[in-house]
């Protein structure tokens, strides 16, 4: 039976893990994702899950265990954040290159230095070229829903690519929300039985996993890997629709909020999108034609769909919760600006970096952005393409 429960983001992930009961969970605790790992360990101790729980000596080892277990033929997941994800870095590429459908929950957190435990997207954005599919969540319900869908997307035979689900550290991971926890059997049925491809436990089949590839094969294998993530969009779409049919909450590549007649648009991901919606409601009541576009899937980047949604607006502000030092804009901005390049008619676009190290972003900050957007829409000119929100200057 579907029930309403008051859970924080970490607990919602653990709850989904309990329902899916993967063959192996290998994870090392790190703030703010610790409670995911802790709760799974408790579930294992209490006999609520039957899969193996492995807590190795580091995140690098945790991802290594995931790779080994997934190669053996198991359904595998992990959870981490920040430095933990950074320590996994070389293994992330191996998981993707070996086409192992591992699912990871990431409680998004800033990267050192300076050391900080609070939420931003520096960790997963740093892994954006690792070959993993990336899905971001606005709140606890979305984190739960995305995490369940992640298995279906990762394990699809056309995709076979690891998926990470981001939930903002503390803002989602530690905040309570009343969420709909779906029926155990219904979730199990939705995720379905896991069918491994070329498992090492199939001892009748002789094979090598991950042999050395020199100049003669490496390029072909990499091209083949790219195909997996390129095949993901129709799968993500179908799984999002089926999830909607089954549980009543449908998902796409992004959410458009009051975009129908919007002249200006704010693009922002994850928890800040919730605050932005409040700002947009207030601005709408003042007669401002403004909307929000909240990307959900960052890899593969739905460039065409996002460009189509934005091309008719008069000004766009892309808000990034990470920076890309020395680059022409932060990650989300560069993607969207590039996506619009093909369009003859395209809006002027501006980038704002916000919330690094968990710095708050409030309704009034979004209103400031809206005001600046209004000016850009009027003049058609971007005076400063990069700004910082709620920073002492």
């Amino acid at each position, binding site marked *: 039976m579907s029930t309403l429960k008051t859970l924080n983001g970490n607990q919602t992930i653990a709850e989904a893990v309990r329902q899916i009961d993967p063959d192996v969970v290998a994870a090392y605790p790190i703030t703010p994702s610790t409670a995911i790992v802790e709760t799974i360990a408790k579930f294992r101790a209490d006999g609520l899950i039957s899969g193996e729980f492995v807590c190795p000596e580091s995140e690098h080892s945790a991802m290594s265990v995931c790779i080994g277990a997934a190669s053996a033929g198991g359904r595998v997941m992990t959870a981490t954040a920040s430095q933990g994800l950074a320590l996994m870095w070389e293994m992330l590429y191996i998981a993707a*290159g*070996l*086409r*192992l459908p591992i699912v990871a929950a990431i409680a998004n957190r800033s990267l050192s230095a300076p050391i900080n435990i609070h939420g931003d997207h520096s960790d997963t954005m740093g892994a954006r070229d690792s070959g993993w599919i990336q899905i971001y969540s606005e709140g606890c319900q979305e984190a739960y829903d995305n995490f369940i869908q992640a298995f279906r997307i990762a394990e699809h035979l056309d995709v*076979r690519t690891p998926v990470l689900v981001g939930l903002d550290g503390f803002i989602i991971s530690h905040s309570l929300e009343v969420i709909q926890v779906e029926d155990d059997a219904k979730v199990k049925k939705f995720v379905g039985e896991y069918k491994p*491809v*070329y498992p090492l436990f199939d001892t009748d*089949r*002789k*094979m*090598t*996993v*991950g*042999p050395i*590839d020199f100049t*003669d*094969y490496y*390029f*072909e*294998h990499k*091209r*083949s*890997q790219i*195909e*997996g993530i390129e095949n993901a969009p129709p799968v993500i779409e179908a799984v999002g629709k089926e999830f909607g049919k089954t549980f009543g909450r449908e998902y796409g590549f992004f959410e458009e909020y009051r975009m129908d007649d919007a002249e200006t648009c704010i693009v922002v991901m994850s928890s800040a999108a919730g605050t932005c919606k409040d700002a947009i409601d207030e601005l709408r009541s003042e007669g401002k034609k403004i909307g929000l576009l909240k990307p959900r899937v960052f890899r593969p980047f739905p460039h065409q769909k996002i460009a189509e949604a934005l091309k008719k607006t008069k000004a766009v502000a892309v808000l990034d919760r990470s920076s890309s030092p020395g680059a022409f804009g932060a990650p989300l901005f560069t993607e969207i600006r590039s996506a619009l390049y093909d369009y003859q008619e395209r809006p002027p676009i501006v980038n704002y970096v916000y919330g690094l190290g968990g710095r708050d972003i409030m309704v009034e900050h979004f209103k400031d952005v809206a005001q600046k957007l209004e000016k850009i829409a009027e003049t058609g000119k971007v005076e400063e393409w990069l700004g910082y929100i709620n920073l002492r200057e």
Partner: protein
Amino acid sequence: MSKETWKELTIGTINLDAGNSVKNLTGTWRSGKKPEFIEENCIQCFFCWLYCPHFAILVKDGEVKGINYDYCTGCGICSVECPSKEKSIVMVKEEIELAGGSKK
């Protein structure tokens, strides 16, 4: 040997063709020198066979008979290790064809 296109490869770098390293003719790595076996000097000590990193010493009926040039990389270890009074393996110049057909 014609190689697969990216579309023909098995998913995830998996290689189902067990033992396919025999297809990797490491002899193509030789670049100007090759070992030559002089049977009358050979004392059948098997040092060359033991030291060869590519199992390229030909053995028949329990006796060293020569070099398998499909796999010999021309590293010269066999010749250095050969303990017979007069070397039974010596490195000689080998003409190799360069890309484009010129010879070196």
